[in-house]
């Protein structure tokens, strides 16, 4: 079929592993990457209601990047660079053989360069010495610093921009990348989601929103528990996911391995509330229906849902309602999982990391467990949830992502067939 867009390369930095093989092994084991926050040291944690997060451990940028590159960008963009590098290597794409203007970079990021952002703002307000603000402050906090640096690292001169829609940023980035290729504006789009803002101010902000889990500060690995009856809020995470998307024609011409096809996408607004979803779930249901229609599929074609499922009381119940509206009795026949149970909510990276889990489910026939799914909640009792690996031949899947600002995204990912 003409106009197909496929995934040919994957890369990831996550709280359960750096690199796709480490991530996927831990994911299949249902391993939780949530731990006690250590990164604020010497900043004390006493005043924080929540004290846990999905932190990327053992990431030394100099191991992956040359020092000039690493020093000029914030942690989230370092993650983006490393994930994109892995995805490109995995895809086997050689930039030297490509027309650079036909290779784009689209990044989804929710918060951006908050590590340096917070540091510079604090120093300016404390010492009132404007001339001591770092010359790199503006380039680093500008929200497209990651899409810029990834393009520079690989000489990709095609469309280059950042999508910022909070928690759904990189699901929209995947959809935009698919459309960009379908419209013929690029052959390849390096699509990345990245965020790394487990910082004293941002974390305090999420605490004040009362959005985070606070019951499991003593048992961090149990804190992120989407759909479980004892969930009490989301757990902040950090990381990056990168997917090389390209036209099927281009991929076949260079005999690339094809993981899956990105087949449909929908973007909507609930036009309702900055942080609360509509409780009837109708807007989410509409978004899923539009994405399936965009892919030319119906609910009967879908086997698996990679849910947005952040582990908040309301959010998971609303998503369940929406799934029941769309799939009716089929809702209990779908395999469903929540990648955030493993890595926490990686904000702008969540769509890409969930996207990688979806692509790998299609590619390997294994659906990773939903960690801590122990006790079903009547408000979200879906039969296809499991705390164990599910073996299933997935033909088509939906990736859900919803963001602050009342926005929703759904992406259809399916098994590739020429």
């Amino acid at each position, binding site marked *: 079929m003409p106009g197909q867009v496929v995934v040919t390369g994957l890369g990831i930095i996550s709280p359960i592993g750096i690199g796709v093989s480490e991530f996927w092994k831990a994911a299949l084991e249902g391993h939780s990457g949530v731990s006690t926050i250590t990164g604020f040291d010497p900043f004390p944690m006493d005043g924080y*209601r929540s004290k846990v997060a999905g932190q990327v451990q053992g990431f030394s940028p100099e191991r992956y990047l040359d020092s000039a590159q690493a020093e000029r960008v914030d942690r989230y963009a370092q993650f983006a660079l490393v994930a994109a590098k892995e995805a490109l290597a995995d895809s086997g794409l050689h930039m030297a053989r490509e027309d650079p203007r036909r290779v784009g970079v689209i990044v989804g990021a929710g918060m951006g360069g908050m590590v340096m952002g917070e540091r510079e703002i604090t120093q300016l307000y404390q010492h009132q010495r404007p001339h001591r603000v770092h010359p790199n402050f503006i380039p680093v906090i500008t929200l497209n610093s990651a899409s810029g640096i990834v393009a520079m690292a690989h000489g990709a001169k095609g469309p280059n921009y950042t999508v910022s829609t909070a928690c759904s940023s990189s699901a929209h980035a995947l959809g935009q990348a698919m459309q960009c290729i379908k419209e013929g504006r690029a052959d390849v789009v390096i699509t990345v989601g990245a965020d790394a803002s487990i910082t004293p101010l941002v974390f305090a902000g999420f605490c*004040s*929103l*009362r959005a985070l889990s*606070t*019951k*499991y*500060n*003593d*048992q961090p690995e149990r804190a992120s528990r989407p759909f479980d009856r*004892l969930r*009490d*809020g989301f757990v902040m995470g950090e990381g990056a996911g990168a997917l090389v998307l390209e036209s099927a024609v281009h991929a076949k011409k260079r005999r690339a391995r094809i993981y899956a096809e990105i087949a449909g996408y929908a973007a909507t607004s609930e036009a309702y*509330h*900055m*942080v*609360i979803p509509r409780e009837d779930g109708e807007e989410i249901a509409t978004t899923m229906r539009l994405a399936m229609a965009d892919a030319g599929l119906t609910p009967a074609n879908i086997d698996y849902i990679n849910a947005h499922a952040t582990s908040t009381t*309301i959010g998971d119940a609303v998503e369940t309602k929406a799934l029941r509206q769309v799939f009716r009795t089929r809702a209990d026949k779908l395999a469903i999982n929540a990648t955030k149970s493993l890595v926490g909510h990686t904000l702008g990276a969540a769509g890409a990391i969930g996207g990688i889990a979806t692509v790998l489910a299609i590619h390997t026939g294994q659906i990773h467990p939903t960690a801590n799914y122990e006790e079903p909640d009547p408000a979200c009792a879906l039969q296809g949830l499991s705390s164990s690996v599910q073996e299933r031949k997935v033909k088509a899947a939906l990736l859900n992502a919803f963001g602050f600002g009342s926005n929703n995204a759904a992406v259809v990912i399916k098994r590739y067939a020429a």
Partner: protein
Amino acid sequence: MSDPAVTGKIIKALADYLRRNPESIEPDQHLRDDLGLDSMAVIELLYKIEEAFDIQIPDEDLVRLSTVGAVCQYVTHRLAPAKRPAPRSRAAKTRKKK
């Protein structure tokens, strides 16, 4: 029982937040059903109350704070150290679950 001074201060904060006459606010009014506060608005209101009374309200106490009167009583108790019903301890809750 709530301290009248505390009640007055809370009703004033609510009235300011809702831009309405303090006299139209009654203790038995439900924050969501009667006063129209959504969950985010309740959080914003509690944020103001935390500042006004210099207290911290843990997440697990939120469920109790559904009416104006409940908020006034809760704050009164929190300000009276001898009678203070300590916010339910996390350790105790965790033990209960095992």
